[in-house]
């Protein structure tokens, strides 16, 4: 579903991403680990066609994102570290708004509220202005937007950063649920524990390169941490 082939991005003399090869199948939750500036966000920006690759390709559902920018965005949803919505609109109105932009504006009010039920956001909160929401609640609206869009791929950029453990846990469950529905997930994160818990595979990035890749089932928490630190120190 998500595929990067020799994907490279250079900003002037700075090499942000070098020769990334990546393939994420439906149902996979691939967690990208790495220090700040390792190239995680650049990878997500390239999949979203927010920046052009210097070389190589990023493809969603078999389509190159640079040559099919609108078509590929039908299949993908993005949840950034801070899901920023229109603060004067309610959660429901924000969902309607982004659904309309995604071309999915045929939902009834009840169907839209059902998406909030699915992500665990109370209906009473859904009709409240987003300006009053916590970060966790906005993340849930982000997931609801992805659900309503029927996205086949989900790009998450440090989504649990700043969430309390309970909200983070709930978020992981939602990701697991989406994975179970066949959604391919690419999540950039610093949270080794969450990567091990939620991911099916992890990749470690350093200085724009993918230096290690493994299935989460093959390593324990401690081992994952040791491998990660070895790469960061080496």
């Amino acid at each position: 579903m998500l595929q990067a082939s020799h994907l490279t991005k250079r900003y002037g003399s700075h090499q942000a991403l070098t020769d990334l090869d990546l393939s994420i199948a439906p149902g996979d939750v691939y967690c990208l680990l790495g220090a700040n500036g390792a190239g995680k966000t650049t990878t997500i920006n390239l999949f979203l066609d927010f920046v052009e690759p210097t070389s190589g390709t990023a493809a969603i559902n078999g389509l190159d994102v640079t040559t099919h920018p609108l078509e590929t965005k039908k299949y993908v949803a993005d949840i950034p570290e801070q899901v920023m919505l229109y603060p004067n609109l309610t959660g429901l109105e924000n969902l309607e708004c982004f659904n309309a932009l995604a071309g999915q504006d045929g939902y009834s009010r009840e169907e839209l509220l059902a998406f909030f039920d699915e992500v665990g956001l109370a209906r009473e909160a859904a009709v409240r202005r987003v300006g009053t929401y916590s970060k966790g609640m906005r993340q849930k609206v982000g997931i609801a937007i992805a659900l309503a869009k029927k996205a086949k791929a989900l790009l998450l950029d440090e989504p649990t950063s700043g969430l309390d453990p309970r909200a983070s846990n709930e978020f992981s469950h939602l990701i697991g649920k989406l994975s179970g529905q066949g959604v391919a997930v690419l999540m950039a994160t610093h949270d080794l524990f969450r990567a091990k818990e939620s991911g099916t595979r992890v990749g470690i990035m350093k200085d724009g390169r993918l230096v290690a890749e493994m299935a989460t089932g093959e390593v324990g928490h401690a081992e994952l941490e040791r491998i990660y630190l070895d790469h960061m120190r080496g």
Partner: protein
Amino acid sequence: MLAADRERGTISLIGAQPTTVSSIVTLRIGLRFAVVVGVTLLAALVGVVAAGVPFAMDTWSRVGIWTLATGLYGAFWFAVAMAIAARGASGATTALAAGGAWLVLVVIVPAAVNVVTGALYPMPSRVQMVQVMREASDEASARGSTLLAQYFEAHPDLLPDGGQHVADAAAIRAAVADEVQRLVRPVAETFDAQATHQRLLAARLRFLSPALLLRGVLDDVTGTGAVRYETFTTQVTAFHDAWREHFTVLAVARQPVESIAAVPVFTFVDESAGDVARRACPALAVLAAGACVLGGIFVHSMRRYSCAR
């Protein structure tokens, strides 16, 4: 709007949707344009109806030109906003740039045009003109009898039977008035010439400011423009000449006014909406071209616009 979305952080969610950011911005701007221009036009139409303007073809043609000019002027400024927004600067910078553009094009350029036309073609002193008129009047009055004699030399057909003219007060006054008019005319023509030079230069320089272009079109449409005024004063001057000639001849020839119907009557031949439309065309074309160029800049800039975090 674009800067607000970037600062609010909603731009990345928008950018992740299967629609171009430029089409969303165009839609938003288009909606605002429709509301602003729609309300303006509605208010104008209400004004036309409330003022009791007759529903003639000419009226509706002028309302049509007014509508087009207002719409294009609005389109120009919305295109300015879009072109600036597409640069991707912060909200404060975008607002400052838009305000700066407005200040330059609506305040500074028109003021500069005013200064330049006045400096290049200064109007002669009014005091000097009044002085010339007084001197001409005094001189002509002193030569009243001589002037009357010269008048009859120039118009021998007006001499009474017997070939001797009578220098009565009315005849002398008519001859004096004729002479004053002759002496003052060069000064008056200097005024007119400078005013025409100013108008022509201002007409050329108006293309530097959309506000001046709109002002010119609206003045023409409503009949308060310089061209119509000049047409009016030309006709008034011609009528004045005809009127003076008519009564001078009667006074000098000591003839009574036998028929009121023979007295010249002023009839203003007004310009048609077609004349106004022809004159408005260059201004409207420049406003439309300006909006198109700025729209092109917007489209070009949006191709490089990044929603990247």
